[in-house]
């Protein structure tokens, strides 16, 4: 039986992370979550995985934009410049609904841009979309 897919959540907000894990569990989503809470460590982790043999890449990266130490857009830009980095599946999950942020992120090649749920009722929907992204990948 193959291992559960891995989702790397790059976010420093524990409150958001708790809700994500809670609703994923409630939805019965079989995934392994890994959290890195700053941009620099996340980039290092991803680049290390890309360079490893065999290659270790998360099945999905949920990337926040406002991150300590290295902003999300910079993580994305530097990741895309790395060898093989353009194949890492990234969904931006940010507070910002600004067109400007969306455009800049989309220009760097992302699967999707989601704004963080402002209401609890939006969580099941987001988990569903996450499951869809994972299913499309395999």
């Amino acid at each position: 039986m193959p291992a559960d897919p891995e989702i790397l959540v790059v976010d420093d907000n524990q409150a958001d992370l708790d809700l994500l894990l809670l609703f994923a569990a409630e939805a019965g989503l079989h995934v392994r979550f890994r959290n890195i809470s700053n941009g620099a460590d996340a980039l290092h982790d991803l680049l290390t995985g890309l360079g490893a043999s065999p290659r270790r890449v998360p099945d999905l990266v949920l990337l926040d934009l406002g991150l300590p130490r290295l902003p999300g857009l910079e993580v994305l830009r530097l990741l895309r410049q790395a060898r093989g980095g353009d194949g890492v599946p990234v969904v931006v999950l940010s507070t910002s609904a600004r067109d400007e942020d969306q455009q800049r992120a989309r220009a760097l090649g992302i699967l999707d841009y989601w704004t963080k749920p402002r209401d609890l009722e939006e969580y099941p929907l987001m988990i569903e979309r996450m499951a869809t992204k994972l299913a499309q990948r395999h």
Partner: protein
Amino acid sequence: MEGSTSSPPTPRAGIERLLDVVQELSAAKRLEDVQAIVRVAARALVGADGATFVLRDHDYCYYVDEDAIGPLWKGRRFPSSVCIAGWAMEHQQAVVIDDVFADPRIPQSVYRETFVKSMTMTPIRPASALGAIGTYWATPHRASQSDLRLLAALANTTAVALENVRLYGELSARLDQLQRVNDELERFTWVTFHDLQEPLRMIATHSQLVNRDEHSGLSERQNRSLRHVHEGVRRAQALTRGFAEYVEVLSKRTAPREVDLRPVVCSALEQAAAQQGVPIPTIELGDPPRVVVDPLGLVRVLGHLFANAIKFRHPERPLELAVSVTDGGARWHFTVRDNGIGIDATYHRRIFAFFERLHPQDEFVGAGLGLAVCRKIIEGWGGAIGVRSEPGAGSEFHFTVPKLTAEAPHAG
């Protein structure tokens, strides 16, 4: 330093020349422009061999500029007490000197280096002098009364021009300052908005989470309090979003282009329905013309009007929405009609103001900024927005969009 001795113009030519100079000076925005006009005009008006433009600099006379057959004192400062320009300013009257070497007011050593034999000096704004205009001749010469009148008129016009330069400088500095403050305010608003969203979201979602947990051990009263927390934070979220959008509208506009209104209306309707959490309502649109507009702005305006119609729909009948566009000559007339609960006439103006809300807070959630945003966008286009409505009988929002031509050719 240039030119040669010239004969004075006829009185009529002098007046015509003066009229030209008045016009030139009225358009001058910089001190250098005023100097350049005055030095040439002063010399030409009276047919002199040279002219100087002198500004008062505290207790000194500053010879700012000159136009003459030989060098005079351009760039030099003399104490007002030993200088003829200083004398003219202090005594508030023009000076005519036929022989500079016979006049005790003249510092002879300074004049011996020059070609000057005769001269005049006319104060600019005699009452509290800003400076003076000097004219000089290389041969003995007596300036006429009409020369002095022309020079006095030139000096008066120069005074006005100098005042304009000062005001213009102040105005530009003020405008620059205002622009900086404005930019800063915009950035500040964005940052505030963004930084507030995160804590507000945390309060909203986690208060909901505790509230939905049946085993939280909270009493009914505590749960009620938690619901109030959640309601309050939702309102705060709506306010910050509305405020940020309002500010954004001020700074961003897309270039007008010719658009098909059908997709614009559909897109606005989809957004409004998603925002209000309802299925996309049907809409009556007819056969709209193609119009040249700022498309994103129009989507935004229609989106707010549709969201309003959905939010304030009648509880007892299905929502009916209609959009029509008619040709009003110089402008397009848009009408968005609904069959909702309507708005009392008392509020027909207030709804377009910043931060107004008419319905009790616990009945509807909304920050009341949508219509203010609409008005801002439409007025930015040079149009206007208004409403016709009666309570219970639905609302009809009207707005106009001036007809434009597309900024870039648009195939389609």
